[in-house]
């Protein structure tokens, strides 16, 4: 995964992803639109720690199966839904027919990286300001 250059950021250059061996371009969303998307992302990954706790909780064997199903089946589908909610211009039907899960995972990472840049840099910036 290559970091985007300052030029790409300033010019709002498209995010390039590879799906089914073909390159696709995704336009980065402006803050107003990505805010909504971020909320959906947090709603999706927020419950992960409690799901993991249920898996390792030996006293709750009934919960294990449902949580595993949630994490291995439902969640990947929700991730794909979320990806195509961001990349609205892509033809979901065509891409799902040719793309692999690994490609989809990498493409999703690229979108997340562009949508959450402050998560990485804000602590650094605050540390510098407090010097």
């Amino acid at each position, binding site marked *: 995964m290559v970091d985007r250059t300052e030029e790409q*950021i300033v010019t709002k250059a498209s995010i390039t992803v590879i799906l089914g061996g073909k390159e696709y371009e995704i336009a*980065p969303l402006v*803050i107003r639109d*990505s*805010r909504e998307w971020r909320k959906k992302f947090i709603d999706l990954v927020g419950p992960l720690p409690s799901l993991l706790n249920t898996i390792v909780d030996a006293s709750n064997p009934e919960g294990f199966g449902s949580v595993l199903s949630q994490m291995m089946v439902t969640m990947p589908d929700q991730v794909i839904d979320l990806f195509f909610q961001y990349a609205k211009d892509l033809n979901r039907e065509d891409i799902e027919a040719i793309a692999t899960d690994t490609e989809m995972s990498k493409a999703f990472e690229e979108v997340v990286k562009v949508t959450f840049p402050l998560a990485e*840099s804000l602590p650094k910036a605050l540390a510098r300001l407090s010097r």
Partner: protein
Amino acid sequence: MMAEWHVTPDYICNNWTDEQLELYVEKLIERKERESNAVKGNQTPNSHSVSPETLAARSRGMIEVIKQ
């Protein structure tokens, strides 16, 4: 920050991406640091004091000496 960039919050939300905001904040901090360092670099211990001759020259007309 809005005053620095001369844009409204509404404009930022509707026109900038998260990456742009992050980059511009980073650049603003870097510039502020450079300005701060430049000011600190120019301030020597003697920069707040002047010689008696300079003080006299600068205050000419402002101080009246009365001989008693």
